[in-house]
């Protein structure tokens, strides 16, 4: 479901490795086709997990002007699914497959005030933004929270770089971040850019809404909605056309309908515009809504779905996978 059409894969070589905090290793890669990485960009890297190819995303911490050296920083999580183990296993000179920098989290220059909020390893996504704001003389505060100083990458360098503008919160020292007091003190012209653990980001989102701040001013990366359930095969029917086809695990319903000759309307193919909407007539199963077009209320009602990204799954409660789930729809 990678929606970014401009993804360019290339080879790169690991040229520098350095531990920058407990369990956090800085990995500098020289890509074959360098492109400057703006703050907020990430690269996807092909990793091997349990002997199988997979892809992981890592923020670009630093890039030189022409992008010939990209620095990432990888946290080896205790609960790793294997990507960080692979990355920590790389030696100098190792070759990797990676994308050119991808941007889902751009910094907007020109806001009246900024908060840059980093929680733990999330600092990797926002460090470059703070650097640009400092260079431009912008009005910003850099709030950096972590469990302990040893676990906070680049902490000393950032304190040197940002001086009075950085605010450090350390759980182990009894100075944890108080989210409501951070958000409650912000004016309506402040843009907040954050990256950190889901719990921290959820707390900020809730506080943001509680204090009635404008949602477009709260910026964070949405790594694309990968769905609540694993994709499975299902059957789609269009009674009016007397058409029935199977949607395989690795294909979207839109693609299956096109292949079956149903001529569906669509535009963005990433769950944003709503043009591929289909009407749900009958359903044995649940809909895994993966779009951002419908509101939560509309998704719960499940009268319609965006067939470009959303799928049909076996209800978790029944658990039976004997029979494929089936959906009957009408097209526009």
């Amino acid at each position, binding site marked *: 479901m990678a929606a970014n059409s401009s993804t360019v894969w290339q080879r790169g070589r690991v040229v520098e490795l350095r531990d920058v905090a407990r369990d956090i290793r800085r990995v500098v890669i020289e890509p074959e086709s360098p492109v400057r990485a703006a703050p907020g960009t990430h690269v996807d890297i092909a990793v091997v997990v349990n002997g199988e190819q997979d892809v992981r995303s890592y923020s670009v911490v630093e890039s030189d002007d022409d992008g010939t050296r990209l620095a990432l920083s990888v946290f080896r999580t205790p609960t790793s699914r294997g990507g960080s183990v692979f990355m920590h296993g790389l030696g100098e000179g190792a070759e990797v497959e990676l994308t050119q920098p991808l941007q889902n989290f751009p910094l907007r220059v020109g806001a009246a005030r900024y908060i840059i909020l980093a929680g733990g390893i999330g600092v990797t996504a926002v460090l470059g933004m703070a650097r640009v704001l400092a260079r431009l003389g912008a009005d910003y505060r850099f709030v950096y929270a972590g469990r302990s100083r040893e676990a906070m990458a680049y902490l000393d360098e950032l304190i040197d770089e940002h001086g009075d503008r950085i605010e450090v919160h350390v759980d182990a020292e009894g100075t944890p971040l108080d989210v409501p007091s951070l958000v409650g003190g912000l004016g309506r012209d402040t843009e907040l850019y954050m990256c950190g653990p889901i719990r921290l980001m959820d707390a900020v989102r809730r506080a943001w809404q509680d204090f009635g701040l404008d949602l*477009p001013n709260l910026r964070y990366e949405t790594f694309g909605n990968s769905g609540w359930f694993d994709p499975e095969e299902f059957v789609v029917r269009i009674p009016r056309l007397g058409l029935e086809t199977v949607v395989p695990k690795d294909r979207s319903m839109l693609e299956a309908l096109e292949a079956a000759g149903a001529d569906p309307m669509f535009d963005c193919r990433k769950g*944003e515009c709503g043009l591929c909407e289909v009407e749900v007539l009958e359903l044995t199963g649940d809909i895994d809504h993966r779009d*951002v077009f*419908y509101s939560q209320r509309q998704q719960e009602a499940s009268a319609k779905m965006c067939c470009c990204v959303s799928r049909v799954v076996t209800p978790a409660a029944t658990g039976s996978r004997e029979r494929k789930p089936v959906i009957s729809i009408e097209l526009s």
Partner: protein
Amino acid sequence: MSHPTSTTNKTLAHPLNAWYVAGWDYELTRKPLARTIANRPLALFRTEDGRPVALADACWHRLAPLSMGKTLGRDEIQCPYHGITYNSAGRCTSMPAQETINPSATVPSFPIVDRYRFAWVWLGDPEKADPALIPDMHQMSSPEWAGDGETIYAPCNYQLVLDNLMDLTHEEFVHASSIGQEELSASDFKVTHDDRTVTVARWMFDIEAPPFWLKNMRDKFPGFEGRVDRWQIIHFEAPSTIRIDVGVAKAGTGAADGDRSQGVNGYVMNTISPETDKTCHYFWAFMRNYCLDSQLITTQLRNGVHGVFGEDEAMLKAQQEAIDANPDYEFYSLNIDAGGMWVRRLIERMLEAEGRLAATQEPQPARVGA
């Protein structure tokens, strides 16, 4: 040739990593203004609390001009066609007939800053938009200076205006009735430069004051008669701001050595914003450091300079037309072009740094008579 010569480019492209004036501060209001700067159509307005905003003047949806819409709420603008609204960052805040907002729906928002009575916009790489790079025009908003100006819509490449201002020998011919005099082309001048600036200084000693300056002397020194020392010190700051320190003082009273107390001093403030490759917005003002409280003098000077610049405008329009009509003829240079040629070279270096110089090279035309 290793370095592209300036003479092969009759007119130049404009650097994008630069601050250009988008308008006088008073021109940006709650009612959106459409203006193209550096080939980029902009919708310009202010938020409820007065901050300037520059958005691309094309709705994300069907590219209808946002400048035809209206401002709403604290910092929003509404597309006149289907009512989609954007905030000052260019992020969509409402879409018709749906409960959510497409997260991709944005229009570019450009850094814009109020300074020196102008709103300055940056259309290049936003990460380089350092307000410290705004050209110095401090006389515009200093309590030690008074004056006012206007905007000329000039139907020519911005470089032609810079050429015009960097060499004032043309005054003798174009502005004979006001500020021109023979001594201008007869006197020597000195050109200096660094990475961002070019200065051309010219002094004329013990001359008759031309009509414009005689009037100014009499405003400060009623009944003044006699000869004067006259100066024109042209300060260029890349890519397109030129301040000209001008004045006259009673002859032999030491103005050239720094004592200007026996004279009158003005600053001709000029900053040129390319609109397209063949048109520009030329913002100017005349500031003075005497009789600060006189609105009469402010108005007289503004009207006087308006008349002078009207003569330039006619010449620049005709020059651009002649350039277009004679594509196979080349420019030649004179010694008097030294200031203007340094300006061209600094601009070419900026374009080169942006990787855009090649695109501005025209095919090499034949030289007349060659």
